[in-house]
């Protein structure tokens, strides 16, 4: 089936629950409310044949309300089509239903989102940090967390210190002025 047919079927099933759809360079995105996310993803897996969960990620739109956003990249090996599903997550209760019962690979993806962004997954069988250690007090990919890090200490396990940035962070900026203006440098 073509992606357009799949999207029509998805639209018939979810109706008004789909808040918006979009297409960019052949990639289709739908946005849903958080409450309808689990149902929609289950429908994608079980009825539309999206058998492969490519990735789960999260976005921190600091300053927006709701602040966070979950992003699911789905792929169907039968139809060879890609679909992106997004849902906004509020800051005061960042709790998202797990999809690790649908795609086992979601287990580690969700642990990473939890570790880096502090979003929790209801029903996850093993929600532990995956990169940082238990007891690390911060969520490093949140926008207010400084690139250099913050001091912390879990005795006998690990400690951290703020890294010297020496005028950094050294970041690129998009510009038409050429590579010299674009290259990574301190933007203080």
């Amino acid at each position, binding site marked *: 089936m073509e992606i357009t047919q799949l999207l029509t079927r998805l639209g018939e099933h979810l109706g008004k629950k789909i808040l918006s759809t979009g297409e960019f360079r052949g990639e289709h995105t739908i946005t849903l409310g958080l409450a309808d996310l689990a149902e929609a993803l289950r429908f994608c897996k079980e009825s539309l044949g999206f058998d492969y969960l490519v990735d789960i990620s999260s976005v921190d739109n600091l300053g927006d309300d709701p602040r966070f956003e979950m992003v699911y990249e789905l792929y169907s090996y039968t139809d060879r089509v890609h679909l992106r599903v997004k849902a906004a997550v509020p800051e005061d209760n960042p709790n998202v239903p797990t999809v690790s019962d649908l795609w086992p690979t979601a287990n580690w993806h969700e642990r990473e989102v939890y570790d880096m962004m502090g979003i929790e997954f209801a029903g996850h069988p093993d929600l532990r940090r995956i990169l940082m250690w238990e007891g690390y007090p911060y969520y*490093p990919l949140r926008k207010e967390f400084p690139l*250099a*890090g913050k001091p912390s200490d879990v005795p006998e*396990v*690990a*400690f951290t210190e703020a*890294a010297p940035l*020496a005028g950094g962070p050294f970041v690129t900026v998009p510009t038409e002025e050429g590579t010299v203006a674009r290259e990574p440098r301190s933007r203080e």
Partner: protein
Amino acid sequence: MATTHAPVAYDSKIEGNVIFTQVDAAINWMRKNSLWPMPMGLACCAIELMATGASRYDISRFGAEVMRFSPRQSDVMIVAGTVTYKMALAVKRIWDQMPEPKWCIAMGACASSGGMYRSYAVLQGIDNLIPVDVYVSGCPPRPEALLDGLMKLQKKIEAEHSTVAQKERLLEELT
């Protein structure tokens, strides 16, 4: 010991099988030519460490081919790679398990200073936790650079007071 005269004297006409030397010179000579490395391969630099150990660069020309994966049998820890905070205390623990005398080579930018990772997750140089004898620059250093570092370490060992330096604290406590 850094001396101006030759540390070993041998005259075949009068001495036969006898060699005159100093304890320091003899012990250091044995130590520096049999450095068993503890390969602390933590990231991409470890690939160059492996290349240094393989046939093309052949670290055994310098007596350091016996890579020991037990800290209790090794003399020099080669920290090759990015030391994340998650790994840092494990590296320290392995270092603490190595018997004296022991030395440390920080191989590459990451082990020496954190390298390009000015970040919340990376220790800014292994010298924050353990004493480093030789820093090897590069990202990654070529095998030649690591071998050069090893030779520098051998030079350093040559100049040590073989026993006194190792037992400094014990001697201090005794006097």
